[in-house]
C-alpha cells in the first residue's frame, strides 16, 4: 500500500511516497541514497542501523518508515559540516576506533546522542549507552577512549 511520508533528514525536508511495509533503513538507503546507515542483523540487536530520530538513537531496521512521519532524522552523513568532520568522528579516526567501519556510523551516532545529553560521561556510562552497538573488530576499548577523548576535548576547548 502506497503512503505519503514527510520527514526531515540531515536538515533537508523530503515529501516521499513509500510502500507501507518498508523499514526506515530501506527508505534511507534505497530511496534517499544515504548508504552510511547499515543493515547488520536486521532484528534490532547490533545497532549498525542506528540513526538519531527526534534526538533519540533508534534502530532504523525496526521502524516501519511510516513511524518516521514528521520526524527529524540525523544519519552519519549529517554530522560533518561543510566537509569538516564532527569532533567525535575525528576522535574515532585519531584513536584507532575504526577498523572495518561497519559498526562505526551507528556507534558514532549513539555516542553523539549520549554527549548531547551528557557532556561529561564516565567510561561506565559510555559503555552502558553503547551497549546496543556491537563491534566485531576493535574490542571496544578504543571506541570508549574516543568518546571519552571527545568529551574531554570539548571541555578543554570550551565547546558545549
Amino acid at each position: 500500500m502506497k503512503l505519503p511520508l514527510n520527514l526531515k533528514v540531515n536538515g533537508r525536508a523530503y515529501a516521499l511516497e513509500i510502500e507501507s511495509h518498508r523499514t526506515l533503513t530501506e527508505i534511507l538507503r534505497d530511496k534517499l541514497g544515504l548508504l552510511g546507515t547499515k543493515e547488520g542483523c536486521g532484528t534490532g540487536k547490533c545497532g549498525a542501523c542506528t540513526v538519531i530520530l527526534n534526538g533519540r538513537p533508534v534502530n532504523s531496521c525496526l521502524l516501519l518508515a511510516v513511524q518516521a512521519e514528521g520526524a527529524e532524522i540525523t544519519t552519519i552523513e549529517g554530522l560533518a559540516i561543510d566537509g569538516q568532520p564532527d569532533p567525535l568522528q575525528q576522535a574515532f579516526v585519531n584513536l584507532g576506533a575504526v577498523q572495518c567501519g561497519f559498526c562505526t556510523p551507528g556507534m558514532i551516532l549513539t555516542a553523539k546522542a549520549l554527549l548531547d545529553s551528557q557532556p561529561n560521561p564516565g567510561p561506565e556510562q559510555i559503555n552502558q549507552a553503547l551497549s546496543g552497538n556491537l563491534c566485531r573488530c576493535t574490542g571496544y576499548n578504543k571506541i570508549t577512549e574516543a568518546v571519552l577523548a571527545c568529551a574531554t576535548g570539548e571541555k578543554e576547548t570550551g565547546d558545549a
Partner: protein
Amino acid sequence: MRIRPFEYLAASSLEEAVELLSRSGSKARLLAGGTDLVPAMKKGQEQPEKIIGLGAIPGLEGVRLSQGGLSIGALSRLADLAINPLLLQHAPALARAVGLIGSWQIRGVATIGGNICHASPAADSAGPLLALEAEVKALGPQGRRTIPLTEFFTGPGQTCLAGDELVESLELPLAQGRPAQTYLKLMRKKAVDLALVGVAVCLEMDSESQSLSKVALALGGVAATPIRVPEAELLLLGKSPAKALSLASEASRLAANGCRPITDVRASAAYRKQMVKVFVRRGLTQVLNQLSGQAQAGGAG
C-alpha cells in the same frame, strides 16, 4: 525475510483504533513502538493484513497523578519512564526495570503497553507492576474496563484481552510512606538480554509500629506468567525490618519453591530456581537494609 505488504491505517483517536480493530478481526495488529511486532513480521511469525498505528493518538504517553494513584499511558516510551520523576519517587522498581529492557535504541521506541501485551513470562515491567498491584485500563467496543494485572497474563504470550480490546493505561495505587523497592535482573551478559530471572521486591513500612505493612515479591521468567509468591511474602509481613532480614534466607527458599521454571536455550530450570533464591535474598537484604537505616535515623532516611 522481507516484511509482507499490509494495509496501514493510522488511528487518530482511541475510539477510532477500537473501531478499526473490531472491524478488522484477527487479521489486524496494533502498532505501538513495533519493537516486538516488526521483528516478528521479519521472521514470518506475524503476517497481518492490516496494521493499525497508534502513534498519532494524543494523550497516551506520560505519567500523571490521578485519584490518589499513578496513571501511566500505554504508549509511554520505556526510556522516558526510566527517568520519569513521578515513577522514580513512587515506583522506583518499575523505573529501574524498564531501564533494563533491551538497549537505549530499543527503549526510545518501545512502549510499556507493548511490553505487557506481548506478555513474555520474563517481561521486566511485569514483576514491578504485579508487586505494585497495578491495574490495566482497557478499552473495547463495549466501553472501558479495569483488569487487575493478576488476571491479565493467562499464559506465555497470552493475555485476557478480547480481540477487539486495547490497553489505554496502567493504574498504580500510591505507596503509603516512602517506597523501599528494587528490581534485579539476571542476564547472560551485562546488558541487552532477556531476563533469565527477574525479581521485584516492593516493601512498605508503617512508621508508627516500625513493621512491614506491605511485602510484595514478584518473579519473572520462572513460570508460565509473571507471578507473586505469597508464601514468602506472608513470612515477612508485619515483622520489623531487622526481624525480616533474619528471615530473608527462609523467604528466598519459599520463593524458589513457589516458582515453576522451564529449561530452555538460555538456562536450565534448576539454575533458574537457584537464582530465584539468590536474587530474592539479595533484593530483600538490599531493601531491608535501606529500611533499617531509615528506621534507625527516625524515618529520615
